[in-house]
């Protein structure tokens, strides 16, 4: 019997219409844990490096994390992996909600989809009964609407549905997969689902997920729960409200948006409004938020309340989480009320709430600059809110200019030409980023932006405070109960880190310290993405309940596989290196590892070069960002080394 894992995958070929239930090799769990790690292994093995995103040979994998469906609080993430139409690299986006545990209860760890259906279909997984069903009546329907329709026609209110909207059907490069209150948005995975002719996957499961050492495992879960309660009562002092507690940043609960609205950029990541947040704004936004927010809600088996049900009078109810309330608002220089309204339509269409507003703000900037003319935008309304709705409607249908903008800022700029490229100033590896432009180079963030394969800073950062505390006392107070550090040296880094002077950015944390900090932060995300733990209880917040010291016991008692800190660290390193190798095989190199040029006003090329050099070394990569033969062999990735060698990407004389 398998523990934590179900031991079975579903293999669906939509070209042939075949469905297979395949027993998996337990050794994969030992090596790659599950979730992202196993997805990466499958993509490496089965998708040739030359395969394009919109190809029958591309795989779209929905994986539950290793601990999903167990009692471990907040382990509910679905990890969706494929190759991105936008970046050409491996895309992996995750969603919380209720889908992954349901899949585990149905008896599967993941669903692997290949091929392309000639007609729009959806998949219905009900324990051992799996069907490919006609979805022609769902064509053009919103993602949330689709889920409701499917639940009704299956007569199963407990079915969990992940669906795409019009954007996915029309292969918009930043189309998302929506699932009630959650979405997997980054990298255009919704477009790949659309390309496969797959409108939705509905799942219902009533089987058991087993754990190997029940009493031990439950004691760990109880402890995590207790700690969550403790942290709820004891927010971290001296940091902004959204970083003081656990969970995703509590955007639905909190009204205070001073930090985002005055530090993040408005429009096409262009304008900082330091004086924006006034008492009047606060009062008006408070009224708006409280009037549309019906209830604070959570994902499966999690006491947090990071999401909310949003009902704006006159438009259908939807669910929202985190920062999307501000992305449209700020991109349009508008008001929160507008943000809540357009997010409803955007959720039904199924677009990424980071990329979509950026693309639209970019288009309006091009219009202002005369690069896009009224002829390119025929019939566009005159008010900015109207323009955003107008653009969104065209993008998801790929109508007129919408077809160009549907490929995202990077590709649109190149298709438009006439100097539009200069307005593409906030992408990394062709992928739109959070609108942040800052002053002084931050060495930690430099590394994360440059090398983070997830290309989304909120899914790379965490654990280590984003800014130094002002006083020594505050720092000493912070490190007192900082049990989550993998090593005492991290406390020292923080104690010495000053807001100004010699021991401040860009020189401090030092190159070595920055590398270590980033390595730790990234590792914790890689562990979460394999286990299905929500970053909001683990890798993202300060002092989280899950950490490197209790994860090994969780994994061991859940799976029966013996794991200690060293072997878990090794597994996370293996997954991270494999991901790197996948992208290296597709052509990614050091030259691609860079933040947007204007991300910081003050740049330090020497420090930056040194940071990358040292970070690559720490990671076991050569100076071009390619994993070395020795490091690959040391991680049981000899098959990767062989392949890269055959392709001439690595050689014995590797630098």
């Amino acid at each position, binding site marked *: 019997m398998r523990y934590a894992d179900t031991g079975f995958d579903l293999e669906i070929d939509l070209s042939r219409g075949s469905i297979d239930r395949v027993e998996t090799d337990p050794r994969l769990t030992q090596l790659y844990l599950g979730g992202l790690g196993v997805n990466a292994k499958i993509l490496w093995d089965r998708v040739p490096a030359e395969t394009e995103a919109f190809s029958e040979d591309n795989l779209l994998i929905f994986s539950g994390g290793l601990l999903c469906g167990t009692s471990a609080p907040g382990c509910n993430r679905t990890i969706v992996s494929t190759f991105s139409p936008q970046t050409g690299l491996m895309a992996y986006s995750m969603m919380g909600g209720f889908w992954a545990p349901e899949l585990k209860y149905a008896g599967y760890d993941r669903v692997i989809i290949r091929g392309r259906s000639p007609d729009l279909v959806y998949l219905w997984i009900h324990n051992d009964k799996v069907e490919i069903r006609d979805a022609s009546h769902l064509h053009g329907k919103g993602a949330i609407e689709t889920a409701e329709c499917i639940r009704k026609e299956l007569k199963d209110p407990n079915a969990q549905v992940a669906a795409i909207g019009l954007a996915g059907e029309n292969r918009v490069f930043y189309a998302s997969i929506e699932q009630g209150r959650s979405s997997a948005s980054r990298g255009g995975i919704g477009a790949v689902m659309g390309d496969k002719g797959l409108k939705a996957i509905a799942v219902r499961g009533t089987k058991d997920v087993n*754990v190997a050492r029940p009493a031990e495992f439950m004691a760990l879960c109880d402890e995590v729960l207790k700690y969550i309660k403790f942290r709820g009562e004891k927010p971290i002092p001296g940091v902004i409200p959204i970083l003081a507690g656990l969970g995703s940043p509590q955007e639905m609960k909190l009204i205070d948006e001073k930090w985002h609205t005055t530090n993040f950029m408005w429009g096409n990541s262009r304008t900082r409004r330091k004086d924006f947040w006034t008492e009047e704004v606060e009062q008006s936004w408070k009224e708006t938020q409280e009037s549309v927010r019906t209830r604070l*809600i959570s994902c499966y088996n999690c006491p947090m309340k990071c999401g909310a049900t949003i009902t704006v009078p006159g438009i259908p109810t939807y*669910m929202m989480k985190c920062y999307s309330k501000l992305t449209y608002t700020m991109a349009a220089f508008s008001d929160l009320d507008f943000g809540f309204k357009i997010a409803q339509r955007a959720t039904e269409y199924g677009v990424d709430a980071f990329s979509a507003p950026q693309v639209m703000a970019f288009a309006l900037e091009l219009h202002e600059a005369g690069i896009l003319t009224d002829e390119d935008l025929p019939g566009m309304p005159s008010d900015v809110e109207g323009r955003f709705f107008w653009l969104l409607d065209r993008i998801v249908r790929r109508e007129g200019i919408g077809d160009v903008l549907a490929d995202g800022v990077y590709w649109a700029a190149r298709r438009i030409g006439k100097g539009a490229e200069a307005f593409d100033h906030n992408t990394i590896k062709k992928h739109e980023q959070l609108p942040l432009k800052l002053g002084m180079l931050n060495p930690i963030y430099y590394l994360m932006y440059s090398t983070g394969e997830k290309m989304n800073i909120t899914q790379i950062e965490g654990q280590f405070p984003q800014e130094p505390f002002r006083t020594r006392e505050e720092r000493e107070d912070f490190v007192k109960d900082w049990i989550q550090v993998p090593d005492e040296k991290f406390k020292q880094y923080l104690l010495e880190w000053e807001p100004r002077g010699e021991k401040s950015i860009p020189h401090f944390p030092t190159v070595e310290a920055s590398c270590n900090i980033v390595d730790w932060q990234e590792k914790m995300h890689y562990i979460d993405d394999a286990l299905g733990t929500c970053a909001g209880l683990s890798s993202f917040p300060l002092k989280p309940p899950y950490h490197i010291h209790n994860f090994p016991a969780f994994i061991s008692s859940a799976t029966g596989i013996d794991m200690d800190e060293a072997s878990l660290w090794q597994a996370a390193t293996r997954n991270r290196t494999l991901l790197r190798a996948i992208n290296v095989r597709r052509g990614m190199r050091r030259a691609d590892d860079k933040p947007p040029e204007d991300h910081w006003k003050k740049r330090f090329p020497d420090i930056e070069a040194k940071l990358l050099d040292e970070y690559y070394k720490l990671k076991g990569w050569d100076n071009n960002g390619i994993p070395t033969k020795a490091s690959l062999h040391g991680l049981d990735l000899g098959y990767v080394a062989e392949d890269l060698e055959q392709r001439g990407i690595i050689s014995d004389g590797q630098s």
Partner: protein
Amino acid sequence: MGKVKKTVKAITINADLCNGCRSCEMVCSSFHAAPRYSSNNPARSRIRVVREPLKDIYIPVYAGEYTAAECTGREKYILDGKEYEECDFCRASCPSRDLFKEPDSGLPLKCDMCEDEPPLAKPKCVEWCLNEALVYQEYEEEVEEADVSPGDVEIGVESLIDKYGLQQVLDTIARRSKA
């Protein structure tokens, strides 16, 4: 007739505080697994959250008595502008729905307040509900002592003994109680 004291175990359900996470279902199924905590399966749970997120309906319901037949007719309740089926509040394991039945055998499930030896401070679902949508309370209630004067049942049994003889009635009761 005297009064006697009885301990009442009560759970107050504040549906307005429910965040819809279903931890209660999860931990219930885990507690009742054999061996204890060895598996998870909300379909085996004796508490279920009736959820309709888009209608903002979240009702935690505990499994109560088994019933052989479904109700004749259905009512709808409208509370605070939200429309509920009467089944949304019903605790019965009933043929009209798949709630509160073992998924394998179809046998009815019933909440036992997590009886354990030694007893838990509170049922697991309550312990795991950090949002306090479920609150546990024990209190003593004075109830009338059971009536000892011959009641309808005793009178009925007497007439059966008169008719069939004591032995045959005893045999029948023994057989019935095994069924």
